């Protein structure tokens, strides 16, 4: 079974990232978003656990230490992974590479690819 991607974030950030990634790469299966607004810690755990249910998934979250990250880390089992700091570059890499990689190796690659997509450029003085 191909590794699924579940983007769990605050508000609609995850939904927008999933939509925009598919706008760039095309519609795909097992690539979804959940939001956690208004849910308790226990409810977030149940929501994520019910969705990934022992199958191969990578859960993408927005920031370390936030509820999506903490609760996803609490419920994953072998063959599943959590990657935080989700961005568009990371998600595009996920969709490109997931047919050929298992979740653990893929998660580590995505952190590297996501980090590589972080760059800055300074404006020059006029």
């Amino acid at each position: 079974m191909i590794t699924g991607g579940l983007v769990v974030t605050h508000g609609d950030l995850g939904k927008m990232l999933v939509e925009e990634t598919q706008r760039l790469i095309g519609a795909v299966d097992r690539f979804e978003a959940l939001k956690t607004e208004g849910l308790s810690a226990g409810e977030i755990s149940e929501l994520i656990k019910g969705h990934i249910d022992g199958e191969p998934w990578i859960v993408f979250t927005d920031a370390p230490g936030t509820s999506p990250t903490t609760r996803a880390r609490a419920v994953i089992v072998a063959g599943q992974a959590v990657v935080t700091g989700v961005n568009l570059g990371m998600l595009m890499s996920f969709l490109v590479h997931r047919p050929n990689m298992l979740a653990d190796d893929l998660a580590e690659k995505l952190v590297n690819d996501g980090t590589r997509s972080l760059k800055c450029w300074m404006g020059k003085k006029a």
Partner: protein
Amino acid sequence: MSQTVLRIDDRLVHGQVLYGWGKLWPAEELWLVDDAVAADENERKLYEEPIQYVCRGGVIALEQVAELTRDFEGNRLLVTRDLEAAKHLLSSGVKVDQITLGNIASGQGREQFADHVFLSAEERGVLESIKKDGVEVVIRDLPSDTPRDPFLSPVKEGL
């Protein structure tokens, strides 16, 4: 001015707590006071790691609250998952200047007082009594928010 704030939040330690309170307030100490999390090594690590990235603190059980330094100088944030735990914490003698209501889920007999704050008449009675004992009780997500009074009328009818 140094302050100890007790936040009641059923999301426990999360983004607003870590970044809004921990980093921006800022808190010199942040403690999640929760028996269930303290008793589970994996859960405890999940919360202690981000807390200790931001400031001093961690996860303790309710019975350990009495061990917190009583003459602490600085901002200290204590977090409990519900009012029941908050009551136990207050009875331990730790000085608390303010209780802030963060996320309290809806439930039977509870009415809505803010986006994510639902209280029953009994819970409001407990908070009234805490307020009479000299602890300020407010609703606010972040330190920068204008504190709201939980003793005003609910924003929605009972659920």
